[in-house]
């Protein structure tokens, strides 16, 4: 039997440990689909190690906020895994600190801090990225809210553990339209939040289309490493919410046995890699949307989420 605090620490370690690896797998799969050999799966870790050894520079005139933001944002990403079912089916004590909305708030706080740091730099691209990220975040916010409403109607709470348990309880819970629609809408939001193809090229150097990627242009050294690591962790956090709460809440530890927890620690990255493969296929099959078409993408996600709530109100969802 593992003590509960150990499991809670393992939750965080799993997310930040496996985050860059999942990014590496996605980059690899994407390259393979394009007929390239692609980087090593472990490349993101090497990148981080390299960046941590480098010197850190700050633009002239940037205040302490510029350097504090990456650390604070990373702290946010360390906090969210405590709130969501990463390893266990049973709620852990710190899981009651916040509901889905609380986790969302902490994630947006991190995004806000990075945006503020980007505004500190005075660099046009970083500022442009920050302003775009905030603009479109305001459009995707209603989608997230409606997804949370759906969860609230389905479970009468908005604790992620409760929804995961509901989904596991019967096949009828999986196939009901409200659940399918909410999961699809959340997936579209995740595509936006992780900067994937219909919204943003993930690995390009095309500054004009950049949203999230542009914000960290002026950061360097360990601070840049923290931002990169943070965005990899954020990606895995969002994947975990989609997988362990909505789509596939299986493979989690039901007891505190060490082997069950270790199995769950292996299962989560595996599931995330499968989802990452789907994302890579989407990356390769669609063109990037023009910037002003992103509202249409958000409108489609909003449609799904709203229909989910509608069907629930009719009693048949």
């Amino acid at each position, binding site marked *: 039997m593992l003590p509960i605090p150990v499991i809670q620490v393992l939750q965080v370690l799993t997310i930040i440990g496996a985050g860059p690896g999942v990014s590496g797998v996605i980059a690899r799969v994407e390259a393979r689909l394009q007929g390239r050999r692609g980087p090593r799966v472990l490349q993101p870790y090497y990148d981080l190690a390299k960046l941590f050894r480098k010197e850190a520079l700050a633009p002239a005139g940037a205040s302490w906020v510029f350097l504090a933001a990456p650390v604070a944002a990373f702290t946010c990403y360390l906090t969210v895994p405590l709130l969501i079912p990463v390893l266990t089916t049973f709620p852990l004590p710190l899981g009651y600190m916040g509901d889905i909305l609380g986790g969302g708030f902490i994630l947006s706080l991190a995004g806000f801090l990075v945006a503020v740091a980007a505004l500190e730099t005075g660099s046009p691209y970083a500022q442009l990225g920050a302003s775009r990220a905030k603009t479109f975040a305001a459009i995707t916010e209603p989608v997230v809210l409606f997804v949370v409403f759906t969860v609230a*109607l*389905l*479970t*009468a709470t908005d604790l992620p553990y409760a929804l995961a348990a*509901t989904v596991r*309880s*019967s*096949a*009828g*819970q*999986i*196939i*009901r*339209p*409200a659940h*399918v*629609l909410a999961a699809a809408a959340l997936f579209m939001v995740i595509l936006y939040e992780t900067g994937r193809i219909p919204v943003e090229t993930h690995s390009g150097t095309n500054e004009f289309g950049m949203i999230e990627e542009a914000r960290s242009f002026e950061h360097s050294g360990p601070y840049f490493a923290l931002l990169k690591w943070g965005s990899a962790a954020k990606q895995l956090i969002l994947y975990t919410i989609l997988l362990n709460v909505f789509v596939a809440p299986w493979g989690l530890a039901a007891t505190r046995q060490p082997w069950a927890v270790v199995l769950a620690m292996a299962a989560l990255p595996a599931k995330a890699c499968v989802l990452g493969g789907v994302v890579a296929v989407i990356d390769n099959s669609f063109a990037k949307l023009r910037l002003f078409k992103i*509202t*249409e993408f*958000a*409108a*489609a996600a*909003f*449609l*799904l989420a*709203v*229909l989910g709530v*509608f*069907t*629930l*109100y*009719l*009693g*048949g*969802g």
Partner: protein
Amino acid sequence: MLPAQAPSVYTGAANVIAVLILLAEFGMFRQALLRDQVRLYAGQSVLIAVLAVLVAAVRHLPELYVLAAVTVALKAVAIPLVLRRLLRGTAPGHPLDVSHDIAGSGGLGLASTVLIGIAVAAFGFFSATVLPVSGGGAPVTALSVSLSVVLVAFVLMIHRRDVASQAIGLFSLENGISLAALVVAASLPLILEVALLFDLLLAVVVFGLLIRLHHGRAETLSTTDLTDLRG
């Protein structure tokens, strides 16, 4: 507040298919290319057939298998083929000329039309709940979805400015009615259902004639010019 009860797997699956039909309708809303609209219409018809098969299997209504087969043959194969041939006929001698392939856009932006569509769909949803219908075949939620499909198809026909999109709007409206028929009267005599389908075939012929005629007169598929009165 109590958690919403889980429907049975059959109810859930039927409702998901109904919602997918509605989403296909919204997809036609968003599509700019007529070709893709026709493809979406075919997909929507296949979904109707899948729902019919599901209802037939669960409710033991074997004649619905026939209906599903006829639906696929007619709405997913024949009508899209005819529509595509008609559309090809309207591109004057230029097989690569795609300008005729683009559906005339409505007066509003895409995001706002989707929002209008959501509002109209919501009206359909909630107006169906007051109807005193106890389901015969598919679950009742699918009925409200079918009302939404019909209303959204109306909006599609109103806001698009080209004959072809309007025709597709009408055909998909018929899909909404088929969905409603599956819900309310799944055991409707097959002969009536098939008669309805052939009614649709008639509409295709009429619309085909209209498209040809309109294109022959105005050299375009757009209906905006029709508002000019000529003495």
